[in-house]
């Protein structure tokens, strides 16, 4: 057992897979010599050499195209898009090329690749470096979407993403990079499409993702002191979506809350609400509540950013309010 930061866990997960499989390679801006702008690939160049850990030009389309072409022809590339906001300049490669090529070719082409990216806010970077874009990604048929919240999950889900034969967008939360957690020794391989119950509870099901998981857990602790017992589910993966775990929990608690960092309109929680409407309606004992960032770009001032992204206090208060008899 070791205590690792989230950023160290990213490098550990990649290293674990590179060690195991020569076809795993890493490309991106500043990922090699500098070890990544977020230091998520520190030490990998030294360990695996310049043929497998490669600094690229600032050319996001070229990066994702290279990853895709290599994945189609025998490699298992990991490509880094530094800030997830930058997906906007290479979204074609994700949406039109990676996502559709297997389908359009009737299964002839397989695209086993991972695109890792720093996602989300709370670091005062302003509107162009703080977005949570997981909800764009999950809207695209053919792309898997993962967003781990703990160092252990980072390692295991990175391994699962690399071993997946489908393209996976791997969203690292920038606000979690320096967070720490225990990580077991030895290889860890997790499973995509599985949520985790982080805190069992009987009064309400609270579903969260990424940075929102720890905030939801903290809110749940405070609510427990007030006699409200929340079950907190870390979704971990949006595609595939572990709806069964959420619906099973809802069946026991009768109330559903989502805690989302993405802008409100068509955030991932709205799909969960729709699923609850389809398959969990008769389990509901009250309205479903989505606790989200408003539908706005994020401001950079800490006072403003903190007002927008769901905080522990806001999560606690909205849940408490909704559960008032």
């Amino acid at each position: 057992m070791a205590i690792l930061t989230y950023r160290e866990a990213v490098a550990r997960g990649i290293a674990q897979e590179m060690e195991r499989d020569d076809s795993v390679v890493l490309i991106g801006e500043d990922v090699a010599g500098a070890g990544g702008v977020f230091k998520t690939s520190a030490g990998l160049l030294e360990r695996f050499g310049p043929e497998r850990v490669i600094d690229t030009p600032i050319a996001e389309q070229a990066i994702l195209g290279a990853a895709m072409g290599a994945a189609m022809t025998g490699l298992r590339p990991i490509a880094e898009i530094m800030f997830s906001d930058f997906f906007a300049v290479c979204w074609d490669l994700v949406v039109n090329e990676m996502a559709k090529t297997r389908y359009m070719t009737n299964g002839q082409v397989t695209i086993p690749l991972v695109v890792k990216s720093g996602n989300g806010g709370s670091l005062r970077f302003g509107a162009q470096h703080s977005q949570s874009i997981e909800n764009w990604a999950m809207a695209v048929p053919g792309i898997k979407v993962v967003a781990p919240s703990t160092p252990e999950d980072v390692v295991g889900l990175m391994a699962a993403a690399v071993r997946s034969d489908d393209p996976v967008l791997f969203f690292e939360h920038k606000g979690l990079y320096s967070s720490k957690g225990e990580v077991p020794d030895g290889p860890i391989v997790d499973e995509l499409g599985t949520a985790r119950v982080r805190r069992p509870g009987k009064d309400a099901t609270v579903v969260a993702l990424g940075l929102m998981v720890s905030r939801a857990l903290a809110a749940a602790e405070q609510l427990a002191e007030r006699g409200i017992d929340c079950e907190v589910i870390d979704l971990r993966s949006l595609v595939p979506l572990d709806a069964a775990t959420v619906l099973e929990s809802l069946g026991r608690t009768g109330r559903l809350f989502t805690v989302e960092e993405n802008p409100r309109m068509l955030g991932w929680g709205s799909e969960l609400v729709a699923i609850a409407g389809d398959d969990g309606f008769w389990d509901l004992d009250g309205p479903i509540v989505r606790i989200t960032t408003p539908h706005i770009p994020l401001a950079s001032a800490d006072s403003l950013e903190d007002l927008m992204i769901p905080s522990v206090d806001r999560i606690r208060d909205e849940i408490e309010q909704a559960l008032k008899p």
Partner: protein
Amino acid sequence: MNLPLSNHAYGEHALVLPPDDPTSHDDADISMETRLRMYRMLQEMRQFEKRAYDLFMQQLVKGTTHLSLGMEAVAAGFGAAMDTDDYTFATYRGHAHTLARGVPMEGVLAELLGRANGLLGGKGGSMHLTSVEHKVMGSYAIIGAHLTIANGAAWSAQYRRSGQVAVCFFGDGTTNIGAFHEALNYAAVFKLPVVFVCENNQYMEYTAIGDITAVRRPAADRAPAYGLEPIVVDGNDADAVHLVAAEALAHARSGKGPVMVEALTYRHGGHSRADPGKYKPPGELEAWLAYDPIKVYRGRLERLGVAAADIDAINAEVAAAVDEATEAAKNGPLPDPRAAFTDVWADGGHQWRS
């Protein structure tokens, strides 16, 4: 005030006309076997495309289709020069490049007709022809993207030390999109074994390339910015293309990095579907029809002593093959409705939730 765009003269660039000497490559060092092979390919592409057009006009080919009529020599010249393991990356105008790698006509035509016996089971259509078995790694319909993907295949070949080269075909219009420039720099920096082939047919969709491009030769004049030689080849002479292709492939294969080839050619028809091409200035089409790649090549074969009857026999064989493929395509069943739900994911299915 004199606004700059009020002086922008669309259609007033100088006409680009074909060379006028079809004999220029009569003496090229190319075996008769290869030449006959290329002639057969030219015929296959020509007759296939004409049939595709007819079927489109009969509304059997739905949606859209982009023909290579008039541009066949580029596909044949490269097709005959590539190793069986080399990768092809094509565009939506990709029928000829697909046939050039030996993909049977039936599957291609059936795909155009949306049938289950289509190359992609009816799920891709005319613009996305792919046959991994023949190393045709796809036909891509978003301008520019596939240059970056071809880089990836070339990178993988380099990493695996397989000796393969990726050949990526695209149009003149594609030289103005960002992905083109990203791809060129990337390929040059990493010395990737990739050959970029610009089929300069002088038009994007309906706008002449000269009217909206800062340089005269859209690909060749950009190549030096990425440390590459500016190479222009007569894209209507299969021998000229073949020689340049062989050299480019050898260069890329030897580890010296990418090559950019601009093949000057012309599309006889419109951009797609039934586009009548009214934007073409008078005399231009006629001049290029007179320098038709098939006419040029047939003339050469005859000058080199191939009997007209032997050439006609090739034409007839190809015609029979196209007829046969047409019948097989027309008789193909419609896709099983369940096929719409397969192969979103590598497990073969489409499930996204539990």
